[in-house]
């Protein structure tokens, strides 16, 4: 890892999608792209496990994260939000609904936070500076 990449790790609650994450998440993100076709969405919804086993080369851990709709876990395993958006679009969820699940807040509380001006930067800038 370069110093360029390492610097981002100081930002709390954030994973930037580096070339090495792109490599480890390749099969997961390609699975997401497959959901851009209606026929694939129908096949996935009919039997999610079978679709993942038969059409992807994802790790068991990645498959489980998809089945659990654990978006933080998917990102940890190399997923990127714009790819993952195809999963929650298939589920009929908006960005706001899906994104709120990563914060540990109920969606109503998350939406209210946004209406009130969003998450304040205070305390969310730097782990080492505690700011």
């Amino acid at each position: 890892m370069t110093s360029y990449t390492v610097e981002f790790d100081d930002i709390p609650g954030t994973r930037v999608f580096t070339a090495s994450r792109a490599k480890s998440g390749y099969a997961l993100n390609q699975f997401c792209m497959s959901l851009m076709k209606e026929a694939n969405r129908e096949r996935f919804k009919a039997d999610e496990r079978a679709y993942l086993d038969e059409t992807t080369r994802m790790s068991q851990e990645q498959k489980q994260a998809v089945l659990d709709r654990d978006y933080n876990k998917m990102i940890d395993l190399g997923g990127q939000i714009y790819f993952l958006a195809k999963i929650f679009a298939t589920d009929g969820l908006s960005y706001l609904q899906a994104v709120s699940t990563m914060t540990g807040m109920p969606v109503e509380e998350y939406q209210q936070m946004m209406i009130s001006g969003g998450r304040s930067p205070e305390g969310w800038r730097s782990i080492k500076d505690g700011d």
Partner: protein
Amino acid sequence: MARITHGLTTSHIPAVGATIDQGRTQEPYWKPLFDGYEWTKAWARENVPDVVILVYNDHASAFTPALVPTFALGCADEFPPADEGYGPRPVPVVPGRPDLAAHLAEGLILDEFDLTLMYDMPVDHGLTVPLSLIYGQPQAWPTTVIPLAVNVVQYPPPTGHRCFMLGQAIRRSVERFDENLNVHIWGTGGMSHQLQGPRAGFINQPWDHAFMDRLLKDPAELARMKHLEYVREAGAEGIELVMWLIMRGALGPEAEELHRFYHVPGSNTAVGHMVLRSAETPA
């Protein structure tokens, strides 16, 4: 000769497109956001360009994980709306401008910007939501469009400085085109927002306002900002703001602000919108 006369910036939130498509723009949550574009819609009706160079980012629609071009120029006759997982948006196919795109491809590559050239490219909400915000719901878009897709998904994206220089090169190249064309350039995405992880929902209003001020008055210095500062101060997806620097570079050294609008929230995002006139454009 062709000239870049005006620039425009706007966020490109997908929920904004869905709200327009579903006829819900007058709902209390959404109305203040759409009201902020009314001035621009009226202005745009009176100032239709021949071509819009539309700088945006693809959100894993045209580009799979197999292909990550830093700058990709749309050279096709037309660009269909992408299916992003819920069917394509019900908006017109986007007409291209292949003669000017071919000219730009040649001019920019010889100017040492090694673009990827796209002859078959669906366009997602990053490109179609700005068109809907400015032109509403026409049967056909009133202008031709040259898409310029910028990678802001996989790190590193291009630096702000590189984007600013590309904008300057676009201005030079457009001015070498023989036909008399009025060209606008749009920079889209932003402003502060984060769509991932426990920090999702991040918004930094003072930083956003300062960014707009600096974009107008001191873009060369703003272009030196590091990626780390974008992510730290504007959220992970705030990195999209490097694209506004392409627009600004293409307007020339001095620009005048005709309109500005800022609103929180649009879904997860701080909405920023500016309309600028190049100082070299007659008022």
